[in-house]
């Protein structure tokens, strides 16, 4: 389990990990750029919410999990899906609505799933998946396991009743849940302070007798460290945590939203872009001598090729069979009764 402490060159295992995290963030960035392109070409339909700017949150948090842990998230799920290890091919194919997609082309951008990786969606109702993650935490405790249930949601979701009810139950029952609020300051066009009575979201944890931390979401090291602490608390005996991870969305809310609409200025966006999580982590690795420009370039070439391959794969792979319209509505087996 990685720790944020400085990696000495000798610790090659840790160094490899750190370079791998950079690669993951790059992969997400390039994947999202490609997805944006494909959307403009009409290859991807519906709503499409990109993760650009928030890469360190998904990569940092998921880096601290075990393969048997569970994740639920929102419609802004491409980055976490990739960070969890769903292949770029399977994710891109899902965005293209193809049979080879991670949800067989039936879910789409907002509903990415891979049960084998404990990646349980991809949910479209703001706040709606938070009770699910409490329920997954309940199931873990019920079975007396030491897994954790991780839930990602935006800062706008903390005003919703589902958040309140779900965290209260996780608090009373002391469930192995980690609630990750990706505070990117806006819910669509609504700034945090226009929708939330208390600016300091993490304080709401007090209402639920829960541990809390505020984390700089642009610094992968900080995210990993905070998540490490949360995971340690969550594994038995369980203590739930609310992490408020402060980040920023470098792009529009969705593909149909301009980068800066009426609700934020170009200057504000530019200012935040300076704290690019990929640059910050790259600098860190360079300063520790774990990578050089050539190494970064090499990684970037690699991930671009991986993304192009995913694109071509998605583009060429077949649509679901027409019969698929009627499958998966009910369980295949008839009633055992």
């Amino acid at each position, binding site marked *: 389990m990685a720790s944020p402490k400085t990696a000495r060159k000798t610790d090659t295992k840790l160094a490899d990990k750190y370079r791998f995290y950079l690669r993951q963030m790059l992969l997400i960035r390039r994947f999202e750029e490609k997805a944006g392109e494909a959307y403009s070409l009409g290859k991807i339909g519906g709503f499409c919410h990109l993760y650009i700017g928030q890469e360190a949150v998904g990569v940092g948090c998921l880096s601290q999990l075990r393969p048997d842990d569970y994740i639920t998230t929102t419609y802004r799920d491409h980055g976490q899906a990739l960070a969890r290890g769903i292949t770029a091919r399977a994710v891109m194919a899902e965005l293209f609505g193809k049979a080879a997609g991670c949800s067989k082309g039936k879910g789409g951008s907002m509903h990415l799933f891979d049960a084998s990786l404990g990646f349980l969606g991809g949910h479209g109702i703001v706040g709606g998946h938070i*009770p699910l993650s409490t329920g*997954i935490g309940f*199931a873990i405790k019920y079975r007396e396991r030491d897994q954790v249930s991780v839930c990602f949601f935006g800062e706008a979701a903390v005003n919703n009743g589902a958040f309140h009810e779900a965290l209260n139950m996780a608090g009373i029952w002391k469930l192995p849940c980690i609630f990750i609020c990706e505070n990117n300051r806006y819910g669509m066009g609504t700034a945090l302070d226009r929708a939330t009575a208390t600016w300091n979201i993490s304080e709401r944890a007090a209402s639920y007798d829960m541990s809390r931390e505020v984390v700089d979401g642009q610094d992968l090291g900080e995210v990993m460290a905070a998540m490490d602490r949360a995971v340690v608390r969550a594994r038995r005996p369980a203590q739930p945590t609310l992490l408020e991870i402060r980040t920023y969305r470098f792009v529009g809310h969705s593909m149909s939203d301009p980068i800066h609409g009426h609700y934020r200025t170009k200057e504000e966006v530019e200012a935040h872009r300076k704290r690019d999580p990929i640059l910050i982590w790259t600098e860190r690795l360079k300063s520790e001598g774990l990578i050089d420009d050539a190494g970064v370039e090499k990684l970037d070439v690699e991930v671009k090729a991986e993304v192009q391959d995913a694109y071509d794969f998605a583009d060429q792979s077949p649509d679901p069979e027409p019969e698929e319209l009627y499958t998966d509505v009910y369980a295949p087996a008839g009633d055992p009764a």
Partner: protein
Amino acid sequence: MPMITYRDALNQALREEMARDPKVFLMGEEVGVYQGAYKVSRGLLEEFGPNRVVDTPITELGFAGVGVGAAMVGLRPIIEFMTWNFALLAIDQIINTAAKIRYMSGGQVGCPIVFRGPAGAALQLGAQHSQSFESVYAHIPGLKVIMPATPADAKGLLKSAIRDDNPVVFMEGEMLYNTKGEVPEGEHLVPIGKAEIKRPGEHVSLICYSKTVAACLKAAELLEAEGVSAEVLDLRTIRPLDLEALFTSVSRTHRAVVAEEGWYFAGAGAQVVDELQKGIFDELDAPILRVTGADVPMPYNKYLEKAAKADPAKIVAAAKQVLYLA
């Protein structure tokens, strides 16, 4: 066969299925320490302990979602709503997650869960506590909807619902809990999706479910006194509808009355009418009439409330009308 109440039949089903499968647990308001608001879960906390009989805060949206999440990872939750009126707060979890997660995930994530509790009116509980929403849930693909009328069906269908791999909406009746009937002990399963003729007849089919079954049986008695032989067909499951049973019965009687407790507009009975006129149009010798609750929020005053409910007299009147005896 032992005569037991509808309440005890449900309690038996819960106890037997929890004993049979450790993945099954019961969650809801007052199901544990309080022994259930209507005592359906009496004794279960003592028998299975607080991990499997879980009292919740008053947060229908939240604990319905907790149940769905637990079901997504393989447990088999039974979520009790103190009444289905309160489930309106949880309907997003039932419709947007439970009913869709299998489909959205391309078949990877199932949701074997039962949502249960009393539906419809009792006595003078007023507008917010006297509603029957089966047609709302039956509208939704991905759900099954069950409304048993008798203790035996309550036990047999609840056991089937708990073993079903899909989200099941199971609606009981506060006014049915004390009704008694013969109930087979132990393994007694009633298949989901099968209607039952509760009383055979020749001249008219009285199609019903839940509380209107007793009303139709009473109506059939009254009609018999007037020389009319009425068949009482208990749907038992609203979704999926047992079309074969519907078509067989009405093809014999050529006349039908559909009785339901809920409101008429787009009620489950309207779907029954639609299926019948589409499926056996030429067999129908008269329009199908529906007897439903009055199209008003339920009033508190006991006489107004009585007037608002579907009852044997109204069913008899409708039956005579489709027989052109009125």
